[in-house]
C-alpha cells in the first residue's frame, strides 16, 4: 500500500488531472502526438504586422476564437479550457472544484486597440487626460477587467467553483512552476485536499515581442520558423516567443485514492532560490540555479542518482542553455552525460508564464508513456554543452522521475521533481 506521507511527514501530492494547450493544439492527445513526432509549432507571425520587427516568428495559439481578442481574453480562454480538461480527467465537478486556485499568468495591461479607441473617442487635450476622460464614461466593465490583475482568476473561480481567494502570481518565466509549487504547499500544510494550478499565457502582442527584442532575447532566425528554436545548439540565438497553458489537478494521495481517482503522477518536490546578481543575467557561477535544483531534490527526498530525465528550461538563448548546463553538470557531476535532458521549447517555443506548467504536464506524460520527446533542431551541437539532449527523435525509456527546470528574469529559479509512482 502506498504511503500517504513523505519523508518529512507531509501529505504526498498526486496529480489526477492534466490539461494542455500549445501552438501544437488543444488537449493532451494532440500535443503529445505532435511532440513525440518532433513537430514544431513555430510559425510566421500573422496576428499583427511585422514591419520594422527583427523577429517575425512565434509560437502563438492562433486557432481559438479568442486568439484575436487580446491578451486577457486569450489567456482566460486557455486557462479555462485546460482547467476543464484537467478537472474532467480527474473526475471532479467542473463547476464546484472545491479547492483553491493558483494561476500563473502574464502581468496585464490595457490593450493597444482599446487605448486607441479611448483616445479616438476623445475630443482634445493631452493624450493621457483624454483617455482618462473617456475611460470614466465607459458603461461596461469589459475593458476594465482586461486591465485588472485579479480578473482572470476571479472569473475562473466563478466558473470552476474553486474555493476562497484565488492567487494570481508571476515569477516571470518560472511562473507556471511556482503555481504548482503553491498548490503542493497548500496541500502539504493541510489547508486543502486538492488544488488547481494553472499556467496560462496568451500575451504575445507586438509590444511584448518588441520588449523582448530590445533585450536581445529573441531568435531572429526567421527564414525557417520551425528551425529557429534550437536549444543547446551552437548557433542558437534566442528564444521563440510563444503561448500556451496547462492545468494540473493536485490532490493529496490519500484523497485521490480514497475516491478511486486515477493517479497520473506524484509531485515529489519543489525547490527555489532567488538570484541577486542581475535583472536578466544569472550569477556566473550558476549558484542560485544549482541551489534550486538541490533544494528540489532534497524536498523530494531523492539523491542525484535517482533522477531519470531532465525536462530542461532549455530556452535556446546563448545564456540560459550555457548556465543550465553548468548547473546540471555541477549537481549531477559526470553522470549528467548519461541522463537524457530535452527541451520541449525546441518545438513549442517559450510559453513564458505558462512554461513551467506546460513542461510539468509534458514531464508527467513522459513518465506515463515511457517516451521522451526530443530536442529538435539539434544539427549543430554546442561543443561546450555535453548533454544527451535526445536529439531530433523521440526515445522510448523507462522514466520514473523527472527534474523540470524553470528560470526567469528577476532572478527566479524554480525546480520541480516529479515521479511516476508513489513510494
Amino acid at each position, binding site marked *: 500500500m502506498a504511503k500517504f506521507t513523505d519523508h518529512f511527514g507531509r501529505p504526498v501530492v498526486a496529480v489526477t488531472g492534466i490539461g494542455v494547450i500549445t501552438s501544437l493544439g488543444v488537449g493532451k492527445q494532440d500535443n503529445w502526438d505532435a511532440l513525440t513526432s518532433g513537430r514544431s509549432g513555430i510559425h510566421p507571425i500573422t496576428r499583427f504586422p511585422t514591419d520594422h520587427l527583427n523577429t517575425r516568428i512565434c509560437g502563438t495559439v492562433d486557432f481559438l476564437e479568442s486568439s484575436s481578442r487580446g491578451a486577457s481574453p486569450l489567456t482566460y480562454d486557455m486557462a479555462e479550457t485546460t482547467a476543464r480538461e484537467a478537472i474532467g480527467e480527474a473526475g471532479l465537478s467542473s463547476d464546484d472544484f472545491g479547492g483553491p486556485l493558483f494561476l500563473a499568468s502574464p*502581468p496585464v495591461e*490595457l490593450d493597444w486597440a482599446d487605448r486607441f479607441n479611448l*483616445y479616438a473617442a476623445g475630443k482634445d487635450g493631452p493624450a493621457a487626460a483624454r483617455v482618462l476622460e473617456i475611460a470614466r464614461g465607459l458603461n461596461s466593465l469589459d475593458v476594465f477587467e482586461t486591465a485588472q490583475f485579479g480578473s482572470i482568476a476571479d472569473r475562473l473561480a466563478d466558473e470552476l467553483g474553486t474555493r*476562497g481567494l484565488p492567487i494570481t502570481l*508571476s515569477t516571470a518565466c518560472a511562473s507556471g512552476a511556482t503555481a504548482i509549487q503553491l498548490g503542493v504547499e497548500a496541500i502539504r500544510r493541510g489547508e486543502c485536499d486538492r488544488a488547481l494550478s494553472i499556467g496560462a499565457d496568451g500575451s504575445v502582442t507586438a509590444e511584448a515581442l518588441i520588449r523582448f527584442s530590445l533585450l536581445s532575447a529573441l531568435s531572429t532566425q526567421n527564414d525557417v520558423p520551425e528551425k529557429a528554436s534550437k536549444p543547446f545548439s551552437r548557433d542558437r540565438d534566442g528564444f521563440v516567443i510563444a503561448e500556451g497553458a496547462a492545468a494540473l489537478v493536485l490532490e493529496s494521495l490519500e484523497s485521490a485514492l480514497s475516491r478511486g481517482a486515477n493517479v497520473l503522477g506524484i509531485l515529489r518536490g519543489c525547490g527555489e*532560490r532567488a538570484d541577486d546578481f542581475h535583472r536578466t543575467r544569472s550569477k556566473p557561477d550558476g549558484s542560485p540555479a544549482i541551489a534550486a535544483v538541490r533544494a528540489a531534490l532534497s524536498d523530494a527526498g531523492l539523491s542525484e542518482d535517482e533522477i531519470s530525465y531532465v525536462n530542461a528550461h532549455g530556452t535556446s538563448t546563448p545564456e540560459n542553455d550555457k548556465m543550465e548546463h553548468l548547473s546540471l553538470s555541477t549537481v549531477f557531476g559526470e553522470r549528467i552525460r548519461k541522463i537524457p535532458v530535452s527541451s520541449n521549447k525546441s518545438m513549442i517555443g517559450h510559453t513564458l508564464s505558462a512554461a513551467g506548467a506546460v513542461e510539468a504536464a509534458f514531464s508527467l506524460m513522459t513518465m506515463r508513456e515511457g517516451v521522451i520527446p526530443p530536442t529538435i533542431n539539434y544539427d549543430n551541437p554546442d561543443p561546450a554543452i555535453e548533454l544527451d539532449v535526445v536529439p531530433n527523435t523521440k526515445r522510448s525509456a523507462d522514466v520514473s522521475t523527472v527534474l523540470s527546470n524553470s528560470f526567469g528574469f528577476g532572478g527566479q529559479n524554480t525546480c520541480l521533481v516529479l515521479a511516476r509512482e508513489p513510494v
Partner: protein
Amino acid sequence: MSPNDVLITGIGLVSSLGEGIDAHWQKLTADRPQPVTDDARFPPYVVHPLPAIDWGLQIPKRGDQRQMETWQRLGTYAAGLALDDAAIKDETLCATMDMVVAAGGGERDEAVDATILEASTARNDRDVLLNEKLTTDLRPTLFLAQLSNLLAGNISIVHKVTGSSRTFMGEEGAGVAAVETAAARIRSGQSSHMLVGAAFQTEHNDMLLGYELAGYLHRGPWKPVWQRQGSEGGGVVTGSGGAFLVLESREHAQKRGRKAYAQLGPVFSDRVRRRKQDLAAEIATLAAKAGVPGGRPTLAISGVSGAHAATAAEKKAFEAMPDVALRGFSTLVGHLKEAQFPFAVALAALAVANRAAYPAFDAETEKPFSGDTTSVLATTIGYHQFEGMAQVLAAD
C-alpha cells in the same frame, strides 16, 4: 504560545505622510491628523503624493536606481526600511529569507504612448505605427521596470533577500494573499523569517486609468474616505506609498533576541461574489471568523477604499457592531492598492506595540475609542473584489 507563532518584527512604511514608523505614528496620532494632497497635477483627481525621498539611503548604487522607475524604487526602499527595522540585513539571514511581494505593473513611458496616440488619428495602419514607434522609441530596460516580479527581483539585488521570491498580482487581494501565505509558511514551519509587502505609485496617468476604466476615482475636492458618497466620481482617492513587514517565527525572533511589535493572528481572506451575495453580510461573516465583535471594544484599522458600493457595505457591516471603532487610513494616505492590507496590518501592529489607539481620522464619521489595543483588527475590502482580515495581537 507556539514556537511557530507569527511575529511582526520589522515594519517599513512610506506614504504622503513621510517615511518610517515614527513619522507615521506621530502624524497619525496627532490631535487632528491632516492629509497631504495634490490636486494640481492630475485634475480632476486629487492624489496623496510621495514625500521627498533620498533613494540612496536604501538603494546605494546609482546603477540600481537607474534600472528602476519610481514604483520599484519605492518598494525596494520600503522593503529596506522594514529589513533595517528588524535588524535583519545580514548576509546569512537575508540569504535564507523568503519573500512574497504583492505587485501590479510598473510605469509605462507616457511620452512614447502619447506620441503614438497623437499620430494614430492621421493613420489607418495603427498596428504598423505601433511597430514603427515602439521599436525606435522604447528604452530597452524599461520593460524590466514594468515587470511585476521585478520589484521582488530588485529587492533581491539590492538587499540580498534570496531564500525565495514570489510575486502575487491582483490589486488588494494580492496584498491579502501575500500576507496570508507568508504567515501560513511560518505557522507550518516552512519558513522561519519572511519579507512581505507591496508598493503603489499612483502619480502616473496609467495608474489612475486602472481605476478609471470602471469610473472608480473620486473627482473634485478631497473628502474623508467615508464621506464621498454622492460626490462626483467613484469615491477612490489614491496615494503613493508602500508597506513591508518582516514576519518571523517566535522561535527565530527569540533566538536572535528581537522584540516583536505584535503577533499576527490567522488571516481570513475571501472572494465574495458581490453581484450575487450581500457584501455587508459577508464582511460581518469574515469579521466573525477573525473573532470580531469579541465582546469588548475593538479598534479596526480599515483599508476601506472609498469606492461607493464596497465602502457603504463596510460601513453598514461595522455599524452593526457598536464595540468596533473603525479607522479608515485612506482618508490620510489615499488608496495604496496592493499595499492596502500590509499597510493596515502595519498600523495595527503599531497600535498594539504602543498600547495606544489612533484618534478618529475622520471625526465626523469614526467613533472615538478608549479601549485597549492588545488586539486590533486589520481589514481590507477591495474596491472591486477580494477581501481580507486579520487580528493583530500583543506578542506576549
